[in-house]
């Protein structure tokens, strides 16, 4: 059966992709941010996962407000980067782990989840940026080193799902991976956050203390975060920082006891608290 080799958490701020596009990763402004991803990139090279499950939210790029799915699961063979208004980015498309996608969809529905199942869809920076941060950008003409299984969570239009529901989906994800025939090595990427708010008079809100507490305790005390309400997330991390609850899907798919191999924080990346963690089952 397939095996979960680790859980990664990361921000997916679009400006990170822009900095990479413009070759600014080594600039004074950005270097301290990108340096924190050297370890996760080495970990990925050493661990050689076959599949990355990426939990993220669309940002009004693949879904419009006419039809908003609470959870969506990708079963496509291929996911092209979506044009977010700036034209196509010069990165390769993502090969889909379609078999695992269908298996997960089956498990979800049987477990009384109600996903939308997507066979033809593009992916925005919510998936692109974590892949670039953890895998590095492929050389011209190259490919990503892993297939992806995208899981979209609506964090934009209310009602957004509860942190508790995100956690429960992570439990099903674990069962799905561990019952998936073959010997694929699977890494789970929870993405989004950390604290930020883009609109309203509180725009520019950052909460570095809460961000640091999140990174310090997501491994050791996930229940603290699991038990918070959606309102708590908005208040603590800002309206867009509430995305952070998507890390719970990843955390719930891991063991109760995990080792935190790496932790990194940087503020502000654009208007956002940013960082990452690398977890392995203890």
């Amino acid at each position, binding site marked *: 059966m397939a095996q979960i080799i680790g859980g990664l958490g990361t921000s997916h701020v679009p400006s990170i992709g822009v900095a990479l596009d413009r070759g600014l990763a080594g600039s004074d402004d950005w270097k301290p941010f990108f340096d924190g991803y050297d370890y996760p990139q080495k970990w990925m090279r050493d661990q050689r996962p076959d599949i990355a499950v990426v939990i993220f939210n669309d940002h009004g790029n693949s879904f419009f407000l006419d039809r908003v799915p609470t959870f969506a699961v990708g079963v496509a063979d291929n996911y092209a980067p979506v044009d977010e*208004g700036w034209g196509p980015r010069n990165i390769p498309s993502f090969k889909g782990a379609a078999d695992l996608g269908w298996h997960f969809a089956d498990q979800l529905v049987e477990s009384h989840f109600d996903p939308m199942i997507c066979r033809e869809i593009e992916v925005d920076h919510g998936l692109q940026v974590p892949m670039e941060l953890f895998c590095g950008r492929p050389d011209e003409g190259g490919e990503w080193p892993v297939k992806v299984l995208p899981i979209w969570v609506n964090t934009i*239009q*209310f009602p957004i799902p509860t942190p508790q529901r995100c956690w429960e989906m992570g439990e099903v994800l674990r069962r799905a991976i561990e019952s998936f025939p073959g010997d694929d090595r699977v890494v789970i990427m929870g993405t989004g956050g950390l604290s930020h708010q883009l609109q309203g*008079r509180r725009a520019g809100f*950052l909460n570095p203390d809460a961000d640091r507490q999140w990174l310090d305790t997501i491994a050791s005390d996930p229940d603290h975060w699991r038990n918070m309400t959606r309102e708590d997330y*908005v*208040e603590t991390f*800002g309206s867009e920082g509430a995305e952070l609850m998507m890390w719970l899907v990843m955390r719930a798919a891991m063991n109760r006891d995990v080792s935190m191999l790496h932790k990194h924080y940087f503020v502000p990346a654009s*208007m956002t608290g940013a960082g990452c963690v690398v977890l392995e089952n203890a």
Partner: protein
Amino acid sequence: MANAPDDQNQPGTDIPPTPLLDRDSNLRGYKLNKMAMSLGAPESRQAFKADEDAYLRRFGLDDATRAAVAARDWHEMVRLGGNLFFILKISAVDPVPITSIGAAQAGMSHEDFLKERLGK
């Protein structure tokens, strides 16, 4: 859930401190957001650039909303129900830093916003 208290409220502005994309703003800003969403396609961006007002009318935007878009008034667009993730596509047509848009939301100068909110 909406509108957590905020000590930094600016007088004279009527965007709530923490606007959420709920039923009401979905309704209020639907046409504006739909127009902005369309700018994900290169042909649409061309049509927008070629004759902006005609493009906005095609989506049925009212006078106030067309004026807010024309003025790139990010504060007013959000007040009229625009959601930032959609209206950012307008900012991609004539690029403007997201921090300027943030400053407009907060009702602050760009410089004050960078210093006071982002600690830069």
